[in-house]
């Protein structure tokens, strides 16, 4: 039945999931907006994070330690993409596709060669679950505040500035003695670390990790970034500082997920959602190009 009550009942859960996608989008932001590279590794590293966290938690590991390990595993994955790109001189987008492809096998190995590992919140100690949605929103908000704070600090340091310069202008960075290859590897590593962390949260939230849980993550990440940027531009037409822009990435994730909930509520076949998302992201990526008159 399509009733308003039905829609309203779904909103809190949508916000909780939206925040988690927003956290993932912070990772995508590092590669897509700071380094200005399209990193397709994230479709794999999101599932890697979920698999790592869930397997460890179901083995009785403290969930915070499991999350920290998921983050580190994500960093290692990002390093692989970065090194394939910079050392083997393969274009970044292809490096990401290769690593993402390879991760399918690796993720299956992590999960003991099964496609799905459940993580029942009544039997396991988890930090976030859909059974307690207000709690989930709170945990998501704390993660968002912490990560935005750390990213704001980091990208203001000498190293963070060097990464920004690398993404902005490779020639300038080299002329200033910046090891651009190292900066790229660090950027890919941190981006995928955050994506894996968000994957770990998502798996706990939904109560299982799945080999396909990362499919389309890059597109959702881009959607969150772009929706957030459009909203930020409307609210702060004169521009705003980096921390607020990162906050709008989280907001973008929430708005994206709420749109999906409305679409599902309207009884659109969920199999058509990916087509709809792809078209929305394509248009959002295209519009700024035409506004500049290119």
């Amino acid at each position, binding site marked *: 039945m399509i009733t308003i009550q039905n829609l309203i009942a779904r909103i809190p859960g949508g916000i909780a999931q939206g925040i988690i996608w927003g956290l993932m989008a912070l990772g995508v932001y590092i590669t897509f907006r700071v380094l200005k590279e399209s990193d397709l590794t994230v479709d794999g590293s999101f599932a890697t994070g979920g698999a790592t966290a869930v397997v460890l938690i179901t083995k009785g590991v403290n969930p915070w330690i499991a999350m920290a390990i998921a983050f580190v595993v994500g960093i290692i994955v990002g390093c692989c993409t970065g090194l394939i790109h910079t050392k083997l001189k393969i274009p970044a987008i292809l490096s990401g596709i290769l690593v993402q492809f390879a991760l399918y096998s690796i993720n299956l190995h992590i999960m003991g060669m099964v496609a799905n590992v459940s993580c029942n919140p009544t039997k396991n100690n988890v930090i976030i679950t859909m059974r307690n949605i207000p709690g989930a929103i709170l945990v998501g908000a704390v993660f968002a505040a912490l990560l935005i704070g750390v990213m704001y600090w980091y990208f203001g340091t000498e*190293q963070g500035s060097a990464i920004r310069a690398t993404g902005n202008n490779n020639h300038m960075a080299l002329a200033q*003695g910046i090891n651009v290859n190292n900066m790229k590897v660090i950027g890919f590593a941190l981006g995928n670390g955050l994506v894996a962390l968000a994957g770990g949260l998502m798996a706990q939230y939904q109560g299982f990790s799945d080999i396909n849980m990362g499919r389309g993550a890059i597109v959702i990440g881009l959607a969150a970034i772009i929706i957030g940027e459009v909203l930020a531009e409307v609210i702060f037409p004169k521009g705003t500082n980096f921390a607020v822009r990162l906050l709008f990435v989280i907001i973008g994730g929430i708005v994206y997920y709420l749109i999906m909930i409305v679409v599902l509520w309207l009884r659109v076949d969920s199999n058509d959602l990916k087509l709809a998302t792809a078209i929305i992201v394509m248009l959002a990526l295209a519009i700024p190009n035409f506004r500049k008159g290119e």
Partner: protein
Amino acid sequence: MLRIENIKKTFNPGTINEKMALDGVDLNLEDGEFVTVIGSNGAGKSTLLNAIAGVWLVDEGKIFIDNVDVTKLSEYKRAVYIGRVFQDPMMGTAADMWIEENLALAHRRGQRRGLTPGILPEERETYKLLLKEFDLGLEDRLSTKVGLLSGGQRQALTLIMATLQSPKLLLLDEHTAALDPKTAAKVLEVTDKIVEKSHLTTFMVTHNMKDAISHGTRLLMLNNGKIILDIKGEEKKKLTVEKLLEKFEQASGEEFTNDAAILG
């Protein structure tokens, strides 16, 4: 300060586009020497500059900066010794970053970049005073994105950045070629000021003969990847465009083929 021994570079070896871009270049620049480099299109001026900067490695020969062999060092490692300004005003600065952030990046040229703040409060004052000195109208715009500046302002900023940490060698790659004549003159004025102030060893590639004659202490002319003229001291001071063209024809047996250089 700069010593180049018989360097050679061939692009696209073994293909139909094979080109011997540097054909045994020797050069010795004394400390504080300001050399202008001129030549017709494809003579190898920018190639020689790129060889020194380490954009790629040379096939043969050696390059020393301040008696350090840099022949095998990669571009970013050579940046410890070199300040650089490119022909394209967009290339020398990070457009999405602020003026002060660009200056702070340049202030740390060649240093390890750790987790200390990218810019310290006291740096801002220094940068403000420095920009004021050059009268570019930028001293009150430290937190403006560099992308909003004009080409001339960006080029002047790149020059200031290249020399913020006094480099052993300043490389200028036709850095006024993309600017209108008035702005180009202003940027050259800033160039002379900076070079004189810090007594910098400078290597300036130009397509403009007049600029090559009226600036610097020494003039090199390249042709087909070789240095064919090397003029310094009193002889350089007395040089005119006509004399230079005459010398070029004597040295190369060809006519100078770069209208912009003669008319510009």
